[in-house]
């Protein structure tokens, strides 16, 4: 609901901010830039005050093997989401990789604690509904900075909402809204932030305009993730800019 509300607010805000948006921002597919920047500042403040310190504490007090186990468990829990999307993309080879990984790690890997499938050479994939929509031909739409969730766009933001349904946390409605489920979601957010600590630190040290740096990195990364299923790695270099 938070996401839907944000998308609606962003839509209305766009009407009032379009005139204030620079031509460069419009060219960059960011017609909501003033609103997005405000959300970015909120996220940045929240990160400096709460999320960053909490993530660093988590990283300091949790032994590396335990951190790896937590990462493995949450990655494994997300595999039904990945499987649903590889199937929707009609990619049965990747679907079989994901299904084999999920079964192997859930059983022999003790609930996903140990990433046995990857260790034994099963190719790993990470697909979501935003990527599926892209494969179906949908453009990314305007760039969005989501509260607490970070960079996205209209297509990927909607995709995040759809991806909730195949996730095991939402298979049972009672559990989905339970305190335990929210605690686990919080832990997943914490370990995700801890894993991204180096990226955040480098952003802090090097960005000329941190908002635009994040937007650029997100765009390029998503384009790469969407392109990776084509099997033609060289095609990724077709659209590189000239330096003259």
């Amino acid at each position, binding site marked *: 609901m938070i996401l839907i509300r944000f998308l609606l607010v962003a839509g209305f805000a766009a009407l009032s901010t379009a005139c204030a948006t*620079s031509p*460069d*921002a419009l060219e960059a597919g960011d017609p909501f830039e003033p609103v997005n920047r405000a959300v970015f500042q909120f996220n940045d403040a929240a990160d400096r005050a709460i999320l960053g310190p909490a993530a660093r504490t988590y990283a300091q007090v949790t032994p590396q093997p335990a951190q790896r186990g937590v990462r493995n468990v949450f990655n494994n829990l997300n595999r039904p989401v990945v499987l649903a999307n590889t199937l929707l993309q009609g990619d049965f080879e990747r679907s079989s990789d994901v299904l084999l990984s999920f079964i192997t790690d859930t059983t022999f890997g003790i609930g996903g604690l140990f990433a046995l499938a990857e260790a034994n050479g099963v190719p790993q994939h990470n697909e979501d509904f935003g990527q599926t929509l892209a494969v179906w031909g949908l453009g990314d739409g305007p760039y969005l900075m989501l509260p607490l969730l970070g960079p996205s766009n209209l297509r990927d933001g909607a995709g995040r909402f759809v991806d909730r349904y195949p996730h095991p946390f939402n298979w049972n409605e009672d559990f989905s809204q339970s305190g335990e489920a929210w605690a686990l979601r919080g832990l997943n957010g914490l370990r995700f932030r801890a894993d991204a600590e*180096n990226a955040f630190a*480098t952003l802090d040290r090097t960005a000329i305009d941190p908002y635009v*740096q994040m937007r*650029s990195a997100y765009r*390029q990364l998503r384009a790469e993730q969407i392109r990776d299923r084509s099997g033609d790695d060289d095609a990724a*270099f077709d659209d590189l800019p000239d*330096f003259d």
Partner: protein
Amino acid sequence: MFKSVLAAAALILTGAASAQDTSASEAEAFVESNAQSVIETLQALQAGERDLDEVRAEFRDRIDRLADVERITNFVLGRYRRTASEEDLAAFSETFREYAISVYETELTNYAGQTLSVTGSVTRSPGDYVVRSEVTGGPDGRTYDVNWRVLESDGELQVLDAQVFGVWLAQTQREQILSIIGNNRGQVSAATEALNDRLENSGTQAADAPQGSGE
């Protein structure tokens, strides 16, 4: 990841090789040899064999002799380089160069001990290559794919951009610069000011370097 991006980016500013009628294999060798040189320097730094000031001086020397910073600078300025005054362009070029060097200097200690190996290349057009490589040996134990944009100009090969996990460094810098200028009614001096602010915040004063002729 971004450490690796920056590690890769350090190499952008560290080398150019003479070449006539270059080929993809030459581009691969060019990346491999320059990367190896940087890695050895960093490994020496980590082992305590060389101090930071010495390494810093070596990098600056390489940049002065070999890198085509002007071409990268023109790229990040985009269409605004045609409308900016010569004074603004000179000031921006000096400051951007200092910014790039300061970033790599600041990040230097994070790259020591890593290993880069070339895994192949793609020829986009004659004299325009993307060299693929892998960087390993970082503290997280992961392997990162790093791609290099290598262009031939006047018989010389030069690395102008690097990509790690899908993010091209120079493209990202270009977007930031264009946004700053665009949000300031096309004033290139606004980008120069932002770069100077960045330099001051990072504790590296641009005052050490020769300045442009003002804005």
